[in-house]
């Protein structure tokens, strides 16, 4: 897996229109995971008289793998477009968020290894009643996050310490003190 590239320093310039998709390699990995999971859970259920104590967790896992496969398909069909106005996702469960309407930015990091390396970032942008979710497998992920962080700063969006730490880890300067936990500073209106 390639290193997550550090974002370029924030310049505040309006970026040009950029189209982004999930790379085929990342999607193939997720399809393989979904397939392996379905095989490990559905096959015993289909060919063995499994007792309910084992059948229920197996069926629950099979359902999760099926949802994951559907989500991978949704990601494959999704195309994100970013410009100076906002971010747009075309495809199933798509939508659009204008930068000046951005009201939430969450950035989470997940890793399955004990050393917490080889993980991935999960972002959730919300605004105008819509939430767009994508992860660091997306081409140009860091550029989107950089633009979103800038918009969050302009809109006075409160970021959690987890999001701030993850922004710093990406090389993106987080917005100035958002006022959280500061009893002398009023929170911005949602």
């Amino acid at each position, binding site marked *: 897996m390639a290193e997550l590239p550090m974002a370029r320093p924030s310049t505040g310039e309006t970026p040009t229109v950029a189209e982004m998709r999930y790379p085929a390699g990342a999607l193939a990995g997720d399809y393989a995971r979904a397939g392996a999971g379905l095989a490990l859970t559905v096959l015993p259920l289909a060919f063995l008289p499994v007792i309910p*104590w084992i059948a229920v967790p197996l069926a629950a896992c099979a359902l*999760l793998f099926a949802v994951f496969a559907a989500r991978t398909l949704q990601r494959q069909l999704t195309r994100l477009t970013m410009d100076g106005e906002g971010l747009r996702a075309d495809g199933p469960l798509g939508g659009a968020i204008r930068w000046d309407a951005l009201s939430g930015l969450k950035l989470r*990091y997940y890793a399955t290894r004990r*050393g917490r390396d080889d993980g991935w*970032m*999960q972002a959730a942008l919300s605004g105008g009643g819509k939430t767009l979710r994508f992860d660091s497998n997306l081409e140009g992920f860091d550029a989107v996050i950089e633009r979103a962080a800038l918009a969050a700063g302009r809109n006075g969006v409160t970021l959690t310490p987890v999001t701030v730490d*993850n922004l710093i880890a990406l090389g993106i300067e987080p917005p100035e003190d958002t006022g959280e936990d500061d009893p002398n500073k009023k929170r911005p209106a949602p």
Partner: protein
Amino acid sequence: MLGYVIRRILIMIPTLLAISVITFVIIQLPPGDYLTTLVNEMQSRGESMDQGRLAMLRETYGLDRPMYEQYALWLAGMLRGDFGYSFEYNLPVSDVVGDRLSLTAIVSFATILFIWVVSFPIGIYSATRQYSLGDYVLTFLGFLGLATPSFLLALVMLYFANVWFGTSIGGLMDPRYIGQPWSWGKAMSVFEHMWIPVIVIGTAGTAAMIRRLRANLLDELHKPYVVTARAKGLPPGRALVKYPLRVALNPFVADIGNLLPQVVSGAAIVSVVMSLPTTGPMLLQALRSQDMYLAGSFLMFLAVLTVIGVFLSDLALAALDPRIRLSGGASR
């Protein structure tokens, strides 16, 4: 989060399969099998067994088949709820285990609850009032709990429970309820007897948890961001609960995975001392007599508990602190 759960489950399933292989191989490693042990025992008593009957028994129990075949049959059987046959009891494993699994689960759950309920407030108190009289007393009790062997504590508790409260010594219920179907009276009897094993099994774990939470919380409370939050006028309760306590809980949560099997397997000696009808003593006996399907089923049960416990604690940690470590690198 879905991607994380999927990846964790995909790690979990092969792990369980690998554990089942290792468990089966380890049980088979000692020379001979259950019938060899039985013949040796009979010979030591001056008795003998007909070779033809021995071969017939070996064929009946599938002991003459290759190891991989025995393993495949055992694994497929487990999915069907057939955990094999106990040679020692001449009964299916599920019948031998009977109530023991549910009683073990009840005692284990109560013990974990006891550990959390007691250690959480004491750990916070000790950290927020460091070097106070209360901290010293609780620290002393914590060390005492860590240092006292559980079986010794069991003997002492049994004596005092009988002298002071009139509770019958040993067991998890009054003798008249043993082997009887579940009833309100039996449940109350179990409840009445349970507090002694719960305290005995949970004491060491509680003491360890208190020490860990106290140390973690003290580390956090001395960090500059807490001093800054206090200097800015944040109320003490909020300055404690909002971040330091949450961060200090990470190792606490990570320990759930180890707690579950530790409580179940670590209670074996205590169960022998207190005559508890739990799985521990039966596992010990099954391992000694090479009752392979019974021992294998118990070991798989412990492995499943461990894997599920680690899975749950990883999920809780991922939800609690989805933060990148700056020393580690993220990748696509």
